[in-house]
């Protein structure tokens, strides 16, 4: 096996010229049989449970499938309905964008800044502080405690404090009042958002070479902000890219938090996001064709925001 690789490696350019592209590919594939065997189990499940659902969504979005009858072809009718005749969908789009445009960037910047602050601490304290910031994101449904803090009676901390100060007379129904639902959900979402990306940033800061800072100081970098912008961030651009992808993904996936805090559907659809709309049609009304169209729209939004953010990140340190 090994000797074969060796000889082929050196001989490859010649051998490759003599063969057609397909012959060469086939030869390489046969040579790497083990690689495919090792990849196969994961790839099979990945295709069945991730790739196939995406393709199926795209196809079904063009039909009126409802889980019972054989689907009829409807072309882009579902999309037309979605954008022109569905007022709640437009509300969901608006809420999703507000939600994502706040939680995405804020959680990203928060993760980055906190990681940067944490990086300057001595190792033992750093471990504790990291835990404090990271804990809410791994502790599952601990966000339910916000329901207690902001409960609709006087035993909730928020109401009790406000009443104590004499600012309000009657308790506020926090999670049942359309005016408070969205801001509260955003706060809770942010509270749980310092997750994997945050750890990645902490690791990123630790890998920056110290001698670069010394060289930079000689070259006229005057303060820590310049140091961050010109030295630190450009060196950890790969981590920032990874963090951005996760931040975007998460900013569209806070549906569970909203459900747990406000119930479903939320009052006056005040925190109704595209994800909820999808759930409503797919999981409850079984209008799968229509739900698939919603899913496809969401895919497009997610990919578009990823591309935009990647372009923006390329400008860091310029």
């Amino acid at each position, binding site marked *: 096996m090994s000797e074969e690789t060796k000889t082929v490696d050196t001989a490859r350019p010649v051998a490759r010229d003599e063969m057609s592209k397909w012959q060469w590919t086939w030869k*390489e594939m046969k040579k790497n049989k*083990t690689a495919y065997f090792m*990849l196969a*189990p994961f790839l099979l499940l990945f295709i069945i449970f991730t790739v196939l659902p995406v393709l199926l*969504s795209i196809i079904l979005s063009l039909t009126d499938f409802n889980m019972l009858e054989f689907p009829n072809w409807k072309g882009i009718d579902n999309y037309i309905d979605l954008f022109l005749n569905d007022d709640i969908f437009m509300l969901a789009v608006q809420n999703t964008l507000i939600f994502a445009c706040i939680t995405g960037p804020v959680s990203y910047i928060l993760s980055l800044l906190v990681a940067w602050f944490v990086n300057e601490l001595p190792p033992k304290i750093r471990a504790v502080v990291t835990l404090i910031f990271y804990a809410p994101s791994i502790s599952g449904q601990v966000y339910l405690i916000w329901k*207690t803090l902001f409960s609709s009676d006087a035993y909730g901390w928020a109401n009790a404090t406000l009443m104590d100060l004499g600012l309000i007379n009657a308790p506020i129904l926090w999670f049942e009042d359309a005016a408070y639902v969205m801001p509260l959900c955003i706060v809770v979402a942010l509270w749980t958002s310092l997750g994997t990306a945050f750890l*990645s940033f902490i690791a990123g800061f630790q890998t920056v070479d110290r001698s670069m800072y010394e060289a930079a100081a000689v070259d006229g970098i005057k303060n820590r902000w310049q140091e961050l912008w010109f030295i630190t961030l450009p060196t950890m651009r790969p981590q920032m890219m990874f963090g951005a992808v996760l931040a975007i993904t998460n900013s569209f996936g806070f549906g569970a938090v909203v459900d747990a805090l406000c119930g479903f559907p939320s009052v006056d659809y005040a925190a109704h996001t595209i994800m909820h709309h999808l759930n409503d049609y797919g999981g409850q009304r079984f209008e799968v064709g229509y739900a698939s169209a919603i899913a496809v729209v*969401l895919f497009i939004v997610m990919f578009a925001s990823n591309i935009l953010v990647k372009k923006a990140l390329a400008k860091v340190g310029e």
Partner: protein
Amino acid sequence: MASVKKLRTRGHKVVLNRSAGGDAGITFMLTLLGIIMFVPMYYVVIQSLKPLDELFMFPPRFYVINPTFDNFADLFTLMGDSWVPFSRYIFNTVFITICGTVGNLVLASMAAYSLSKLRFPGRNAIFQMIVMSLMFHSTVNQVTHFIILSSFGWIDTYMSIIVPSMATTMGLYLMKQFMESSVPDTVLESARLDGASEFRTFLIIAMPMVKPAWLTLMIECFKSLWNSGSSIYIHSEELKTFNYAINQIVSAGIARSGASAAAIVVMMMVPIIIFVINQSKIIETMGSSGMKD
């Protein structure tokens, strides 16, 4: 010229570009944010230790006068009354988590080795697909996922949760990046020269070198499974998870606030303890998590 700049020291180390004002400002910010992050976590623990009369005290207190474990005991009696025994919910969560995590570890590390250390046609395309899958939240797929699971006849079985979780891409991604940066090709090459098969090289040489990545992968998978709540693929009460049960208690409202706090505490202790033990390993893995543009 250089003497114009006054050098500050911290311990015996010279610190460049750090003003005292900046240090103070950052410490202040970090403390403030830290308090906001910490208070709800702290409050849930305090709530779980409060006896009944203190739970209904006005205004609510951030400390407990007579700490008691009654709420934890209540949790068990409360759940004893439900038509599915409490232990069943815990068993479901533990069972699903262990099967899914071990499955993910086995499948993803083989795939990660293959993608990072072997060169074969299609390798880049496959990896690109996996990176793309990180870009969308899996709940988008829920509806079509349901159709696929039901065509296998897996609706309302453990399989509907366990099997898809084995192909979670986050762990694979982290493992692959870590293998690429910390397993030198020369070591693998010399194992091959000694006559080890590719699979043996993977198992005996590569895997022991990436222990931090195993842990990280396991925790990534663990946290999503452990925290999974009610799923649309499961409707039998006896297959539902502990998180689902907690939701039921919490939705009972104020009368159950002690028990629900206790349930949340039980649930959050496990991932937190695992993280505390493995923190340095996880951070080490994250060092190579970067994504090239």
